[in-house]
């Protein structure tokens, strides 16, 4: 385990979960614009925007051994230009600092969403599959750009062990992202006559995957899968949900109106995930790095109920 680890986006729910997992084992330094509530005593926190010059103080002050970059914003309510600058410029700046200050390990959290749900997808996408998500849903451009930037960074800086993780939908008791919020709905909208296979990973497992990526010698792009795949309808049934099936030609316009009227927090573009397949092959991470999730499928999707 590296001695001093910087985590961006530590004050988010996933960041907090990661801090809880790692804080006893290593010295953690958080950087986030938000205050870090319920911060463990041994975690140092800097309430800073990662684009600001002052961030360099964190690196100058004391040696940084590794960076885990979670500071990517997905809020569909934030204006696109602001999110874009934060995500793309922020990633570039923080990775530059790693080069200047001799950080030897960089873990960037991307997402399996970069491949995009599409009708012509293969059942299991490998790390080599093209990142096609933006062709249907332009707001994931940010995420793709961050992912691509991290890939080129990996080749430009062979002296740094860069790990790019693309986990499937992260759900859990504390995370509040689109997939977990969707599964929390009593009456979720589904697309009539469509029932894609979906993959979920528990937030604890996502954190364990990031911790595993810190291991010396690990570098590369990895899909990170949870306990397997199930039809969406099975998850909703097991959670006791009462889905509202809407015909595919109506679901997007209706959800768009509802989203604009703030009746739902579910971005209409995410409907693709309820209609088409976006499942990945996680065998490379399992084979090369020894990854195995610790939560079963049932535990994983039931975790949103906590």
């Amino acid at each position, binding site marked *: 385990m590296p001695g001093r680890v910087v985590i961006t986006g530590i004050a988010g729910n996933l960041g907090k979960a990661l801090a809880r997992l790692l804080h006893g084992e290593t010295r953690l330094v958080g950087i986030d614009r938000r205050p870090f509530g319920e911060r463990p005593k041994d975690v140092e926190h800097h309430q800073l925007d990662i684009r600001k010059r002052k961030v360099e103080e964190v690196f100058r002050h004391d040696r940084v051994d590794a960076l885990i970059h979670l500071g990517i914003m997905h809020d569909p309510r934030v204006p696109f230009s602001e999110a874009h600058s934060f995500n793309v410029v922020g990633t570039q700046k923080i990775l530059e600092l790693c080069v200047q200050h001799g950080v030897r390990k960089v873990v960037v959290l991307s997402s399996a969403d970069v491949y995009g749900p599409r009708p012509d*997808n*293969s059942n299991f996408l490998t790390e080599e599959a093209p990142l096609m998500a933006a062709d249907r849903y332009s707001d994931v451009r940010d995420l793709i750009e961050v992912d691509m930037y991290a890939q080129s960074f990996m080749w430009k800086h062979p002296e740094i062990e860069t790990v790019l993780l693309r986990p499937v939908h992260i759900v859990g008791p504390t995370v509040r992202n689109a997939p977990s919020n969707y599964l929390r709905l009593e009456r979720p909208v589904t697309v009539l006559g469509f029932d894609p296979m979906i993959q979920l990973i528990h937030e604890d497992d996502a954190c364990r995957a990031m911790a595993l990526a810190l291991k010396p010698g690990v570098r590369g792009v990895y899909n990170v899968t949870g306990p397997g795949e199930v039809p969406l309808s099975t998850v909703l049934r097991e959670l006791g949900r009462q889905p509202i099936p809407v015909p595919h030609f109506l679901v997007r316009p209706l959800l768009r109106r509802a989203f604009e009227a703030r009746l739902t927090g579910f971005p209409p573009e995410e409907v693709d995930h309820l209609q088409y397949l976006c499942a990945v092959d996680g065998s490379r991470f399992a084979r090369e790095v020894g990854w195995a999730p610790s939560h*079963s499928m049932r535990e994983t999707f039931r975790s949103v109920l906590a």
Partner: protein
Amino acid sequence: MGDLGAALRQRLRALTLELGGPGSRERLEKLTPPRNEFGVDPYGLDIDYAISALAPFLWLYRKYFRVEVNGVERVPTEGRVLIVANHSGQLPFDAAMLGVALLVELDPPRMARALVEKWVPTLPFVSSFYARLGQVVGTPENCRRLLAADEALLVFPEGVRGLNKPYSRRYQLQDFGVGFMRLALEADAPILPVGIVGAEEQAPALANLKSVARLLAMPSLPLSPTLGLPLPTRYRIHFGEPLRFQGSPDDEDAVLEEKVRTVKAAIDRLLAEGLAARKHVFW
């Protein structure tokens, strides 16, 4: 709703076993694809659902098309194989009947995976129905993965070209392409040629309205007096000897086309054999 679905599935399952005849329960129980605690395999195949869903197709198989099979003992009961057949009839009943034949005529049965058109996952109900039956979109990546797992794939190299061809071109194999041959060479999988007689007359099409089809984002729009619904033609499914090919999957198209011609010739022979064996289109 859930109870109704469960009751219906029970009824259909009983119908499948009844139509399947004696011993069909024991035979179908030999199907043990990998599955998780929710009864599905990673591709979405739900074998219990599939056995229930088999009932209407088995009824068509036994009572409507009255399928006769020939040479079914040539089908390898295990190991990877590409089952390559002619395709016709506007709606893919030929694929369904071939799939049923592999389930009810073989012991142990084989649950083959058909490679479907990229259009299918955009269709409501059809997409989820196909997925529960374990059918997958025909991407090269899917084929590689399934062959590596020693599965049986149903391949119709003619695709929509064959499915929607007009009546005047019945029993004339359309262009095959070389994709399936590359995959067979890459995976070192045998090719089992199959000739399906009967589907070619089930829904005669006079023409194919390609421009209207483009407008409706459909792969094609055949003009057929039966509206695509099949007539009760008598089906004959003739299985050939497995063919093994040597060579590199990266060879030029011309080299591969030579091998594809061997497969086409085998299917043509099986079709001729089937046509000679039948007494009439309908009985």
